[in-house]
């Protein structure tokens, strides 16, 4: 085997090792400390139930109830991106542990992916419980036969979403608490802009177009259209959404790669990479 190929093989093994290693921390934690089950399942059902009951009380089309269920499920992934990935470098820094990761010979994206995958167990449990509660407790309609197409777009959306999360995480190489506050500010506005509980077309063309840069917005819009057709009151046709989401996926991953490099170098230049509380 040539030296270059061996080198490449070693790098792949190391980076895969980093992804699984970092993911394993969360997975082990999820099995050992099960208190999250209550917070991640019962309480989110309540928010979703509120919207389902509001739509039902107003006599809205049944598909609207399904929108709320799907939105409730997708919120779990946005929260995972924000709290389990984007801001995770902040906690590692505060615990004096970030430097241990930064001196390892692996890509920062592998570490972040590990964090995200690790958090997926709880996130996906939450999403599934919300879906099941919607379908079996509130009897919202769900066309199972169209589920594979929706799942495909969901995965594409997820890729772009995690790319965005990686871009956000890069700010922690330079800032600490101020970046934490910024990330916190992203949570609620995105709930609104992404149309978690209503069709995003209701925002109007300009606001919905801007919101389209958040991968969940068009992803959720497209998934609803795949599942409910015309009743979804889609913002733009699914045939456009798929390439846009694919473009966002590539764009955000490339930007994340660049942002992580640039911000790490800035942090190293300014000496703020490992300073706690900064």
């Amino acid at each position, binding site marked *: 085997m040539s030296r270059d190929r061996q080198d490449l093989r*070693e790098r792949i*093994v*190391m980076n895969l*090792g*980093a992804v*699984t*290693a970092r993911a*394993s*921390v969360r997975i*082990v*934690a999820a099995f*050992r*400390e099960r208190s999250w089950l209550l917070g991640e399942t019962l309480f989110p059902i309540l928010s979703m139930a509120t919207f389902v009951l509001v739509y039902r009380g107003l006599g809205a089309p049944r598909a609207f109830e399904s929108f709320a269920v799907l939105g409730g499920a997708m919120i779990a992934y946005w929260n995972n991106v924000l709290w389990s990935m984007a801001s995770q470098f902040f906690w590692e820094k505060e615990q*004096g*542990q970030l*430097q*241990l*990761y*930064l*001196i*390892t*010979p*692996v890509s920062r994206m592998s570490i972040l992916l590990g964090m995200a995958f690790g958090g997926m167990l709880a996130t996906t449990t939450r999403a599934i419980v919300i879906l099941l509660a919607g379908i079996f407790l509130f009897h919202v309609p769900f066309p199972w036969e169209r589920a594979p197409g929706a799942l495909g777009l969901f995965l594409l959306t997820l890729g772009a979403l995690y790319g965005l999360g990686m871009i956000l995480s890069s700010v922690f190489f330079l800032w600490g608490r101020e970046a934490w506050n910024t990330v916190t500010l992203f949570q609620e506005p995105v709930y609104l802009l992404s149309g978690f509980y209503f069709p995003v077309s209701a925002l109007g063309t300009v606001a919905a177009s801007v919101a389209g840069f958040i991968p969940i917005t068009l992803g959720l819009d497209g998934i609803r259209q795949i599942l409910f057709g015309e009743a979804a009151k889609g913002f733009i046709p699914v045939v456009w959404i798929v390439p846009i989401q694919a473009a966002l996926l590539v764009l955000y991953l490339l930007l994340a790669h660049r942002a992580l490099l640039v911000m790490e*170098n800035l942090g*190293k*230049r300014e*000496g703020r*990479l*490992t300073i706690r509380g900064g």
Partner: protein
Amino acid sequence: MIPGSTAPAIETAELTRRFRTRRERDVEALRGVDLRVERGECFGLLGPNGAGKSTLIKILTTLLLPTTGRALVAGFDVATEALSVRRRINLVSGGDSSGYGILTVRETLHLFARFYGVPWPVARQRAEELMEITVLGPKADTRMSGLSTGMKQKVNFARGFMSDPEIIFLDEPTLGLDVEASRSIRGFIARWVRERPGRTVLLTTHYMVEADELCGRVAIIDHGKILALDTPMALKRALPEESAFILHVASAPPEGWSERLAGVRTALQHTHPGTGAMEIRLTLAEDQVIGEVLGTLRDLGIAVLNLTKQEPSLESVFVHLVGRGFEEADAAAGAEGA
């Protein structure tokens, strides 16, 4: 030797690092550091707090960029070839702990091995060996959250060796550890270098004895500059012929006391922060002067409780080079930082 490793372990040229403080003041943490550490060395970096030791280590471990100058680790530039550097190094910072409370000691060690692509069977065997050496064996399946601070530090220490690095940076590795744990860790470091030819240790420490016992060569650093670099023996031999004494005294000496002492080269008074015990450290041109000094101290009303003649040590080298002891230097650095 490690295959393909002919470059020195560490090489720096005219390395400087400036920081801008919150008060917009420039602080020079490193001022033109030239250093060359060969493969297989256990090299010590001695200096008080704020001397620049940790800044140098951060640069060499790719966590910080130099302001000017160049630093190579295993022949790779820390600024432009960071990934190649990282594949060959590891870092242990004393006083820090690593890992997550939810994981056990064994799982923590395995976790960090995976970031370096260490194959599973190798990682398992290495973790067992390291746990035995650091006396962590009985706690192998205990969660990190259930360990004492000292135990956590031991795990952190073992973690650094899980990747079997070519070059390991140990930044105050025994800080805060008890005497027994420090001794076992020093023993491990000495054995690691001896049994693995070509492996290099760069050790920063406050403890002169530690550097004396472990390091083949030592650099003394203060205010970002390397003041001396040689074997501990050679550094001690280079001291001018003089006698050093430590006097434990019952009360603080009056103002201007040191000027009254004839035949004394340096006279420092130190109060132990914990116990409040007072001592006077003297260096004399020759032994015979001590009688006269004791007489003067008696005249000044200072009761001497105990007197010890000191053999030349790295501490004496530091005092000779800097004009103050480590504790005084630390106190001064603390005051500057405040």
